[in-house]
């Protein structure tokens, strides 16, 4: 081994893997390696592995911008943010924020939000398995018990309100290979992703619904979550909303806080 030891070797090799000119570093042993044709194999494989993972995790973004554009952008992202760990299904946190500040993406202001929604889908896909809240549990509660209780979102439930553009429609048309068609109604959209059994399901969700779920996730009571929902939409139909959310598998449990029974 060279005088520097294994750690020094790894530092220099790792630097050269991503360097613009891998042979330009100060380490003589690395310069000799980087001068061999085989060094490019490692450089290419590392970058390709990162780009492939991002492309797999962001299929709708890829379809929107085209594979070539996507892979070029993904290479820029990867050089600045290698995976933190080897479970590459999780790679790409921060990709939406990267796209937001990536100058070539400026013409597509909705792209970052599509990436945010893809990320939520990825989280829902790999979240822990857990039973769904049985609607009958809710039906057995009196009005006072109900408003004091807390609805706990299911581990695989994800939701978000996108106020600027029809992100759910753009995403779902570009995620599925069939694409869908028709004119866009260019207004904000919310979405709920859930995994009641097997695969991730998606459905549109009004802003009151996303506000309600935000409050539930924040530990607030049903009463306070209803207030939060009414704050964004005074005409929200609370009963229909909860029925919809329960049927979609948005909740995993109910915590009673009326101290009357366990």
């Amino acid at each position, binding site marked *: 081994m060279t005088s520097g*030891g*294994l750690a020094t070797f790894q530092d220099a090799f790792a630097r050269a893997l991503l360097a613009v000119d891998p042979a330009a570093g100060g380490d003589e042993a690395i310069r000799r390696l980087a001068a061999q044709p085989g060094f490019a194999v490692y450089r290419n494989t590392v970058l390709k592995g990162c780009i492939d993972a991002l492309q797999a995790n962001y299929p709708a973004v890829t379809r929107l911008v085209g594979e070539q554009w996507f892979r070029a952008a993904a290479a820029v992202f990867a050089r600045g943010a290698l995976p933190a760990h080897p479970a590459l299904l999780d790679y790409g946190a921060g990709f939406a924020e990267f796209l937001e500040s990536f100058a070539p993406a400026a013409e597509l202001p909705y792209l970052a939000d599509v990436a945010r929604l893809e990320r939520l889908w990825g989280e829902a896909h790999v979240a822990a398995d857990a039973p769904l809240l049985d609607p009958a549990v809710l039906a057995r509660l009196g009005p006072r018990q109900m408003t004091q209780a807390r609805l706990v979102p299911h581990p695989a439930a994800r939701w978000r309100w996108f106020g600027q553009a029809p992100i759910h429609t753009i995403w779902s048309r570009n995620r599925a290979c069939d694409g869908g068609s028709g004119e866009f109604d260019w207004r904000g959209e919310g979405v709920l992703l859930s995994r009641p059994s097997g*695969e991730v399901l998606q459905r549109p969700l009004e802003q009151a619904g996303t506000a309600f779920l935000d409050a539930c996730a924040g530990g607030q009571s049903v009463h306070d979550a209803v207030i939060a929902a009414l704050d964004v939409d005074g005409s929200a139909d609370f009963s229909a909303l909860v029925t919809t959310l329960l049927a979609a598998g948005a909740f995993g449990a109910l915590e009673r806080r009326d101290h009357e029974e366990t």
Partner: protein
Amino acid sequence: MNRSLAAGLGLKPQHFDDALACAAPGLWFEVHPENYMVAGGPRLAWLEAIRGAHPLSLHGVALSLASAEEPDARHLDRLAALVGRFEPALVSEHLAWSTWRGAYRPDLLPAPRSRELLERVVANIGRAQDRLRRRIALENPSHYLAFDEHEFGEVEFLVEIARRSGCALLLDLNNVFVSSNNLGYDAARYVDAVPGDLVAEVHLAGHSEDPQHGAALLIDSHDAPVADAVWALYERLVARIGPRPTLIERDEQVPSFDQLMAECRRAQGVLTAAAAMPEAA
């Protein structure tokens, strides 16, 4: 070591249904555990279903055993959880590094085979085997670079690691072929030098020529059928050491399940023929 396994296939997601339905006797599947390091969801459910029907092998690509640091504790915990849940017939990893100073590089990176690396790899394998409570097999990687700094030959190095750590070896014959081509040594001599008692598993895969440098630089691309020269190395090995669990790997340009099964049957033919012969010394 599990010598009762026959020929197996690297499992690709697009082949899940075929794999589940396949009733070929003795067929087993290998996956990269990193693709299943998730809290829950359909991926684990798929793997559970496959495991219900076939033996499974977990072939890690990211434990980074050749790093100058201990294996990442969280990664090792996740691997241990998968081993506990799926009770694989085989668990293997590579003589390579990938995770270093908190960043993962999706490749199997090389290092000079020094005394320091030997000590480090033996310690890291010991840590992994203690955590997993089982023996693992260590795979020889593909090589693309000539190091002036090597203090050991690769077979000598692998054998020393195995003897000291108690691990087994996973002999990837395509990697031997690719490396011998790229670095200019005799692949058959390499294969002949590996002690049969250490070999727990054999890998067979395809390779391709570098688009720029041609046949002088072969890439372990797993994007083609197993080459004839690699089949010849396989027959040579099995004739000497007897049958071993053998895997057909394919990761790019993935053909139909039936085409991969045809390669699997070819490997099975070699194993069956060898099983009928008295095992050589």
